[in-house]
Each structure stands twice: as C-alpha cells, then as structure tokens.
C-alpha cells in the first residue's frame, strides 16, 4: 500500500504546507500520522486516519483546508482518482489539535480467477513488515508516520510479490463467500457421488 502512503503524504503535504515555507525537518516535526487500513471480505478498504498537530501546524491547517471539510474530502478524492471513495467522516477536534478522517476505498483490491486478492503498490521496494497473515505495518520515524494494514481474518498466504512489470503487489487469499457454481459444484459433486453409489449398488444388486 505504498501508493496509499505516498498519496496520504501528498495530500497532507498539500493540506498542511501549501502556505508555509519551512525545512523538511520542520514539516515532519509539526504533526504525527497514524493510519489504519482494513480490508473486508468484499474487497472494500476502510481507511481510518488520525493526524495530531502541534499548535502552530494546527492553526495553519485550520487556516487553509481545515476550515472546510469538503476541501479535505476533495483532496482525498483527487489523490485516489482511479478508485471510488465513499462514506466520508471527518472530525477536526480543536481541543486535541487532531484531525480524524474515515472513508472507504472501492476498487483498490482486485480478485483474480484463482481467488487471490491483489492490491497494486505502485512501487518496486515497499518498506512494509509482515506481522502476521492478516497484518502488515510500516513505521517511518523520520516522518512521524505509522501505518497498519489489516486483512480479513480468513486471509492466508499474504505476501508482497512482483507483477509482470516488476512492481510490487500485496496478495492474499481469503475465504470467499459466494453463492455460485463453485458451491454448486460441491453439492453437485455430492449428488453425483450419491448417484454413483446408488448406481453401483443397484448394478451389484441387479447382477446378484
């Protein structure tokens, strides 16, 4: 999800610093980001983002985009232009100098014919650590950012792979709830097996 990270950073860069001329060190010292991405079994990715600012940066944030939630929302939509964003919930808490943003990304995860979920990372060397089959994390202390990716509880074989173009992709398999021919085949298989057994015994009995 490096793409996601980069885009968040981009958005926040726009959001926070368009008005300010400061050094890179100052920029990162002004806020801290915690982000959690949670994928469900239908491939919807829920984003939960908390950004805590120091007083100076909070004032700047409120002065620009922070005064109008629709600007924040539009910035996210622009940053994820290939996907569909929905269910926005944005809360700016002046007392805590913290901004809370929630939304869903549709279309980020794709399902291939083998039942494998795939997310393009748009980078060659993502700096992501696998914690468990269902959890990946990335902590960037220099930029005061931490990210957590939660996969569905049924996720297995989760890993970072490379696609045909050498780009990194996050893949995993998960239990797919589907009312379709795969299930039907299973039942059909049972029926055929039952029929076969029936015919087998019928044949044997008739022979006897």
């Amino acid at each position: 999800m490096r793409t996601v990270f980069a885009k968040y950073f981009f958005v926040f860069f726009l959001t926070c610093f368009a008005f300010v001329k400061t050094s890179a060190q100052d920029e990162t010292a002004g806020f801290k980001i915690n982000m959690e991405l949670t994928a469900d079994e239908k491939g919807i990715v829920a984003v939960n983002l908390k950004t805590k600012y120091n007083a100076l940066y909070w004032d700047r944030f409120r002065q620009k985009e922070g005064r109008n939630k629709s600007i924040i929302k539009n910035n996210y939509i622009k940053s994820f232009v290939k996907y569909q964003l929905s269910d926005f919930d944005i809360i700016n808490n002046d007392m805590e100098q913290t901004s809370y943003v929630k939304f869903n990304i549709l279309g980020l995860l794709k399902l291939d014919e083998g039942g494998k979920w795939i997310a393009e990372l748009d980078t060659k060397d993502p700096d992501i650590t696998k914690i468990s089959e269902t959890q990946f994390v990335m902590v960037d202390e220099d930029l005061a950012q931490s990210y957590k990716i939660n996969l569905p509880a049924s996720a297995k074989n989760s890993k970072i792979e490379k696609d045909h173009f050498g780009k990194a992709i996050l893949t995993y398999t998960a239990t797919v709830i589907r009312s379709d021919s795969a299930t039907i085949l299973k039942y059909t298989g049972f029926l055929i097996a039952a029929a076969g057994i029936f015919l087998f015994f019928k044949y044997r009995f008739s022979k006897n």
Partner: protein
Amino acid sequence: MAFIKPLMGLFTPAVLEIRISNPPVIMSSIYKVYANEAAFEGKYSLFKMLIKNSSDVSAKNIEISYNVSNYIDWVIIEKIPLILPGQTVVVNCYPKFPDNIIEKTTDSKESVKLTVKGSNVKTIENSFSITVKGRNDFMYNFLPADEIRTAEDYYDNVPLLSCLVTPNDPVIKYLTQQIQEKVLKGETAGVSKNEAECIRFLKAVYTATLLSHVVYSGTTGVPSSIDDFNSIVQTIRLPREVVTGKTGLCIELSILYASIMASAGMDPVIYFVPGHAYPGFKLNNEYYAIESTAIGGEGIGGSKTADQAFDMAMNNKASFIQKMEEGDERYLFLDIREAVNKGAVAAELKDDNFLRHKIDEMAASFNGQTVQPITANIQPNNSPNTGKAVVTETGPAAVSGNAVKIPEGYKTFNDVVIFGYPADWKAIPANQYVMQQCKYIIANSANSATIEVYNFPGYNNPKQALTAINEWQKTFGFKLTYKQLGQENGYTVFKGSTGSAGNIAVNWIAAFKVSGSSVSGIIAGANAFTGSKHEQTLMNILNTLQ
C-alpha cells in the same frame, strides 16, 4: 436445504449495477495522456465505471468493452473473472485515439457506447455523448463551475499545457537550428549548462521572434480569476502555428519559447500570474525568465530589446516568487520536463515543407544579427546615474592604495569606492525601488545577487546611510533589519536583511565609510530564496573593498 440457494444460482443471473462518470470534454491535444494509464496517476480517463454486484450470486467472466464514434472501434477494456455478491469494482477507460486526432481543428459531438457482458449476467448497454474539442482548445479544468473553490481547482489542468510544447516537431527543430546557426552563431546552452550561455540562448529566441516580426496579440489571455468562466476554455495554437502565423498570445509565446528551449536541451518553465504568462528556464535550481510579449508590435507602442525583456521578467519573477511563497495559488509555475515525466507528452506532428519554407523566410531576417556572449564589461552609462566608474579588465589586478588583490575572474570597480566583482556580473538599470543616492547596481545574470554602490553627500556617519535607506524602503512597505558587525579597513560593516510582513526578501552585507564630506559604500546582497549560494561571492566582494 442449504444447497437450494446455490442451486438457484445456476438459473438466477447475477445483477450488476453500473455508474459512469466522465469528463465534460475530450481535448484532442492531450490524446497521448488519455492513452497512458500511468499519466498523472490515471487522472485523465474517458470514463470511470463503477460496477456493483447487487445480487446474491457471483458474477463471472465479466467483460467491459466500448467504442467512440468516428475514432475508436469496439475495444475490450477489462476482463474481470469474478465479482462477488456485494463487491464493487472500478474500471477506468484509457482510450487510444489515433494520431490524426491532432489534425482536428473544430469541435464535434461523439457518442461513447459501452457494454458489460458476463457468463451469468444480462448484458448491459450504455452510452453517453461527449464533445471532442479541436486541437487548439484548452480547458483549464474539468470541474463543474459550481464546484470550483480555489485557484488550484481552477488551474487543475495547467500541467497539460506541456502537451502543447513540441520540441520534437520537425518544424520547431528546424527553427531551433536556424536560431542556433544564424542568431547565436553556435551555442552550448543545452550541453554546457552554463548560466551565461543559457541566458544568451533565451535572449536569442527573443531576438529571433523580434527580427521575424512576430507580434504580441493580446486577445483572450490566461484566466485572471477563479470566477473568470469566460476564459475557462482558451484557444492556444501549436508553436508551429504561432511561428508561421507571426502573432502570439502570452501563453502561446511562452509555449513557443519552451518548445525551442526544450529542443535545444534546456529545461524550460512557464510562469503564470493572474491574466498573464511568461517563459523562462531552470538551471541548477535557479530560475530565469524573459518577457516574451515585450516584442510588442508597432501598433502597440513598439518593442523592447532582449536585455530589457530579460530584466523586466527577472524583476517580475522576484515578486512572483514572493507571491507564490505567500501561498497565492494564482501564481503558478509549470516545469515542462517534470510535466512530461508525469505523462504530459506532446502530439506527433509531421514534417511540413510549406512551414519549413516559412521558417526559411523568417531566418533570412536573422542574418547579421547576433546575440553576443555575456562577457561585456560594465557600462556605467546604462547605470542609474551617469557616473564615471573606471573598470579594469578581468582580474587579477592590483589597484592603488592598499593594493588589495582582486581574485582571478574578477573585475575592478573604481569610483566612490573600489572593489572587485565577478567578471560576468554587469550593470543593470535602476528601478523605482532604488533611491537617488544609489549610483550603480551591478548584478549577476539572474539578478539574484547584486551590489549597490551608494554615495551620501553631507553625511558624516555610516549609520546615517542605513537609516536613510531604511526610510526609503519603508515607502514601499519594506523594512531593513540589521546589526553592526564592526570595523574593517576603514569601513563600518553591517549584516542584515530587507523584508516585508515578516518575509525576508534579500539578505545582505553592507560596508560604509566616511569619505571627506560624504558617506559612501556598498550593499552586497542576494535574494533570500537563493539561500547561501552567493554567500562566498559576497564575502569575496567585501574583502576586496578599499
């Protein structure tokens, strides 16, 4: 009974709901951007389709295809093996328009038809109509007018102007060669990355347009405000059309300059201010500019020289940077190579003998006109006051008195004070910000570092000089902040900055001394955005002061 539902799925088709969003128009000049999924992170598509499986049955082997009347035959965009119940997928369409779309000069209304098929879904057919604009119509954004909130929204498509920068156009390449041969008599700007050489090239492009009688025609310009909906679509001709048509808007001239500079291997940029645009280039993180519209025309008050056009733009650039740093989003800056790297690639243009012939006719007027290398000595007559400064050849040179050594590559200035300065710096004219007691201004070619030479008759204390300069600057809203560093070689040395509203514009070092019945000295400074780049040079200058 658990298998009844899946069994029903054998006979019940999946139900897909689709939702399509599309831009208001297709700009034919950016057809290569549409074709590239990676360009601007996929921002420019023909349409985006949301497909949601709203049934309890998985949809299988979904295939999405589309066509565009008169341009693109049926094409499959994507095959999706499976869409789970409740799952939503997003499909973006990046159309490959034929190259000849760039020949389109008028608008047309086209229909886009699309189908969604699948093994167990009922085929969905949909369509919408869209205007395909002619190659010269540029739309500054694709947002609905009532959703535009900021200047950034309004100018959302500005990076796409790079698609009109055509360094590989055979006609523009030919023009570039003619300028290199007949105006510059050879040049190395693109390969040497030498500041003086690049400025010479920029001035040569200006001179070439001037000599070939290209004139400025200021019809509809760059939009001036975000409620300027009349100019949200602007007619911008390709550089080859501007050259051969011999008239150009500010943005057209800027794009022409950018094309020629890119063709010569330089890094062109375009500056946007409300209602206007002007070109320049980037070199070693320094930015340079020229006022391309200063070619004017006889009907609009004549023309400026290349030097004047360069000085005008460099002065304007300083306020441009200040506005940009203040966060005024109407002050934009387009780095052509950066935009090309993001996918704003120019159209394929064919060679044209007729246009080459037109270039030949223009080039005939270039003969005998050259842009000299910038090595000329300081010319006091061009300076603010007609003084009698004595300038020696490039150093090292010993001068009278304490015989301070002038470093290699420096020239000596000898008037009310004596000092050495880099040989490629030159005198520039005064502007309204300079007070009468400033006798000369010497600047580097980018005007980002300057030496101001002052003489205050009747003063008897160096501090009086700075107080007077401060009072003068206050009338323009600027203020001097400084401290005295001490005494050196008879001079009182100060270090300080000039700024406005808390923003530092220039950092400087000053040295003044009492000389007879007056105070004289220099202020050597550099624009704040250059950081410490000129610090050593300014110290060198100060060390030669006597």
